[in-house]
């Protein structure tokens, strides 16, 4: 039997029988995938807890407009509203509430006089609008009107001016949002609240329909869920960590315990040693990918399926990252240092490459760092192939990764010692 294949087989068996190896390279990523998807996957249905206190009541009866506003909040479907009795100190209550999660301490106060102040402002605004309309009407169509009609309009406008003077200064009503600025959901909550307020204002002005509407359309052909987007990120990130952390520690351990010397004393060549390790790691990458997709399909109804392009991409990625592991394992002497170095490289790369979030969320200088990281291109390539159905775009990333592959394989050959062990 070919010695390369024999070594590959032996390394694979040795790895398959390692409980800790199995845990870190397969179970750990899967556990994270499940947690991550469970947390972020169903984001569409997320409801934010919001304590609401309506102080605009008379004898326990809520005023008409305040009730209408609360109804608007309910219809928005973003909030899990919890009503608080009027008169209580909501701010203090929220700060003192030890049972609530820090994040769930949010409150909205509708002040006393909400209805009245809103009404005043609505009247002012409507009157203003009406005056404008009448003035415009008179100017543009005045010559076509009869004298009688013109007088009617002038009389109406005079009458409007007799409304109480203070109404001109109507401020309108304010509601108070109590929120912790550290609350991660703050932007979403503020946005949703603004939407509810805008709708309320429009309705108050008598506008039931809107001039501009937003319609969103999916860029991808199939109807994909959030998990479909996370999956390539997870696959890419853990093929990377398995290569950079896993291979580095394994190879260093072989060097320390004398396995490497044992093999170097046979006719086996250094090239075959490097290749067999990379092959073993690549097999692991495919096993991991298959299990992740399977779990995604069973638990989260994932619909992406790797085609031949994706398989090719995973192959090249796995080779690159295990080659990096071989490079590090080549010159690092002890196992602790190997795992330290592996972690020090893998984790920053994982976070900087946008595998778990879009790189566009990061400052520009970090984005430019991302572009020189192999994981960025690996992930972008996988996204383009698996999600966006765009193998053409992935080609550019593939070429970049192939460049990394060649460089790291050559470096691995340089750092791996086959003599003077």
């Amino acid at each position, binding site marked *: 039997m070919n*010695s390369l294949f*024999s*070594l590959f087989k*032996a390394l694979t*068996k*040795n790895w398959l029988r*390692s409980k800790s190896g199995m845990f870190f390279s397969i179970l750990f990523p899967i556990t994270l995938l499940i947690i991550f998807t469970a947390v972020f996957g169903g984001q569409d249905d997320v409801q934010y807890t919001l304590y609401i206190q309506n102080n605009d009541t008379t004898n326990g009866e809520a005023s008409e407009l305040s009730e209408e506003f609360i109804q608007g909040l309910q219809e928005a479907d973003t909030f899990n509203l919890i009503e608080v009795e009027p008169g209580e100190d909501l701010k203090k209550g929220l700060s003192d509430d030890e049972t609530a999660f820090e994040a769930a301490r949010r409150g909205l106060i509708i002040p006393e006089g909400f209805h009245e102040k809103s009404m005043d402002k609505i009247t002012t605004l409507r009157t203003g609008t009406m005056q404008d309309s009448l003035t415009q009407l008179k100017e543009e169509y005045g010559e076509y009107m009869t004298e009688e009609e013109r007088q009617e309009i002038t009389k109406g406008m005079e009458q409007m001016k007799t409304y109480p003077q203070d109404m001109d200064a109507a401020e309108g009503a304010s509601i108070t949002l109590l929120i912790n600025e550290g609350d991660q959901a703050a932007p979403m909550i503020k946005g949703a609240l603004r939407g509810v307020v805008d709708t309320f204002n429009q309705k108050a002005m008598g506008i039931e329909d809107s001039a501009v509407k937003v319609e969103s359309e999916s860029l991808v052909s199939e109807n994909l869920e959030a998990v479909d987007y996370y999956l390539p990120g997870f696959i890419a990130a853990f093929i990377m960590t398995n290569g950079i952390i896993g291979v580095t520690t394994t190879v260093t351990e072989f060097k320390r315990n004398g*396995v490497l010397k044992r093999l170097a004393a046979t*006719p086996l060549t250094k090239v075959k040693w490097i290749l067999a390790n990379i092959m073993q790691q690549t097999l692991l990458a495919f096993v991991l990918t298959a299990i992740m997709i399977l779990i995604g399909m069973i638990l989260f109804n994932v619909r992406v399926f790797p085609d031949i392009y994706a398989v090719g991409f995973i192959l090249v990625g796995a080779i690159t990252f295990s080659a990096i592991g071989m490079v590090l394992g080549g010159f690092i002497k002890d196992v602790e240092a190997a795992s330290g170095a592996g972690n020090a490289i893998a984790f920053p790369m994982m976070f900087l490459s946008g595998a778990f979030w879009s790189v566009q969320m990061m400052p520009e200088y970090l984005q430019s760092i991302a572009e020189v990281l192999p994981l960025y291109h690996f992930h972008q390539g996988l996204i383009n192939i698996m999600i966006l159905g765009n193998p053409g775009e992935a080609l550019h990333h593939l070429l970049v990764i192939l460049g990394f592959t060649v460089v790291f394989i050559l470096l691995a050959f340089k750092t791996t010692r086959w003599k003077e062990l």
Partner: protein
Amino acid sequence: MGQGTCPRVPVRKGVIALIDVKNLTKRYGEFMAVDNISFEVKEGEIFSLLGPNGAGKTTTIEILQGLKIPTSGQVSVLGYDIYKEEKKIKEQIGVMPQNFNALERLSARENIQLVADIYGKGNKVEEVLELTGVSEFHSKVYLNLSGGMKTKVGIGMALVSDAPLLFLDEPTTGLDPQARREVWDMIEKLKGLGKTIMLTSHYMEEVERLSDRAAVMINGKIQTIGEISYLINNYGGHTKLTTRKDQNTAEILNREAQQVFEPSNGEDLITGVFDNKQSAKKAVIALYEKDYDVKIVEPSLEEAFISLSGSKINEKGELVS
């Protein structure tokens, strides 16, 4: 490997010394690990490098195996030049490195099979398992084997190359006496199969029992080299006979021995020291004829080592004075 003899050694024609080392030096910076040594290993013999830890034994043997690059000197193994023909050498030797390890979660058999496949000698596995006794625990995972079992697997991995020349670097270090003796038996069996074996060790008893020839190595230098009997006869001191002291024994010992003394530990004993074996033999016969019990202390390699180095080697392989 076959029964009885090894197939004709596939070395260059006319090679009698399977290993030929001339003026070999290996330097690490200022440190001379191997300092201008020369020796030969002949076909069919067991040749040992005897010395304490740090003497340069492993460095020397690893240079011969192609695992280290010499600083200077000429080295040929099986007639091949170590600088130019390392690949050919590696194909035709069997190696058990010092403190080696196998893949921990593979069984004893799987590890031997792996090395056999690398040499392209997959068909030798069963034979080697039988010969080394690994067959008794072949399916056990390497990690769970005892020290003695691991050594057997190690010898199996060396043997499965089916090579005429074997290198065993400290094969019994750290083993208990029982396991050590089993390994010795096995090495003797290998010699019986026609293998040429180069051994390193710091155990006097091991070298004395197994080797045909040995080189005493200290601080990177070979102090002396030769057949075991030569080393003992030249450096091993004198034969000593000790028996109960009375008129008869005193008379016999005073007649045959070059020197007679009474041990000072208070017991009623007398000891004769002999320059040569001939006179010692006469004394032993004379004492036996009169039914005396005789304790014979023969010259040994240990004595030889002490007289060569002025020190002893302890169980851990350290030089102690």
